[in-house]
């Protein structure tokens, strides 16, 4: 299955600032997915990123707050903008497994906003 390198692994940020999270995949993939996992909770899909088109955002998530770039088939970034303490979460990127079922995840970015 694809291997995803995600960084940073963690960060502590001041409120009002922005953080960009990067995911690099070792193979070309059509879709990349960004998730948020709040402490002790399940994973919630933020958006789906396709190369060459705008990301598709889920209800409750907007582009101004979570802009996403997808410049090529192996790379994507998620920016968390104008952060508040409520944005403190783990953010994960994901791609479909090579087998055609299931998903592989990056190692996650643990974000703390103070």
């Amino acid at each position: 299955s694809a291997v995803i390198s995600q960084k940073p692994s963690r960060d502590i940020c001041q409120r009002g600032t922005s953080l960009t999270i990067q995911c690099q995949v070792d193979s070309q993939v059509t879709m990349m997915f960004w998730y948020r996992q709040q402490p002790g909770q399940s994973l919630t899909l933020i958006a789906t990123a396709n190369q060459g088109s705008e990301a598709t955002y889920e209800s409750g998530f907007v582009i101004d707050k979570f802009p996403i770039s997808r410049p090529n088939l192996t790379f994507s970034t998620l920016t968390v903008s104008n952060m508040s303490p409520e944005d403190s979460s783990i953010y994960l990127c994901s791609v479909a497994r090579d087998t055609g079922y299931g998903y592989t995840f990056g190692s996650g970015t643990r974000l703390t906003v103070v």
Partner: protein
Amino acid sequence: QQPVQSPQAVILREGEDAVINCSSSKALYSVHWYRQKHGEAPVFLMILLKGGEQKGHEKISASFNEKKQQSSLYLTASQLSYSGTYFCGTEGTYKYIFGTGTRLKVLA
């Protein structure tokens, strides 16, 4: 609609069996199961296909109930390494959805 998992948490002794359920308001066509250890990303365990076929893990199995609105994950002869949070994943309308999660702890 997010699938609801039960139990929310379970503690076992090594060697004991456990069952984790994933319930949906709609029929499930396939269910994926993941395990997430603390501080790590979820890891794909297995898929249960609508015909009952399973792919993925040697020591973990799953099934559907009659209406295919619930999937059960069976962990037999649990090992310490089975500890973690288990999530089911299903294809919802236009997107993939994870269940609410079940925390499992295996004690020596």
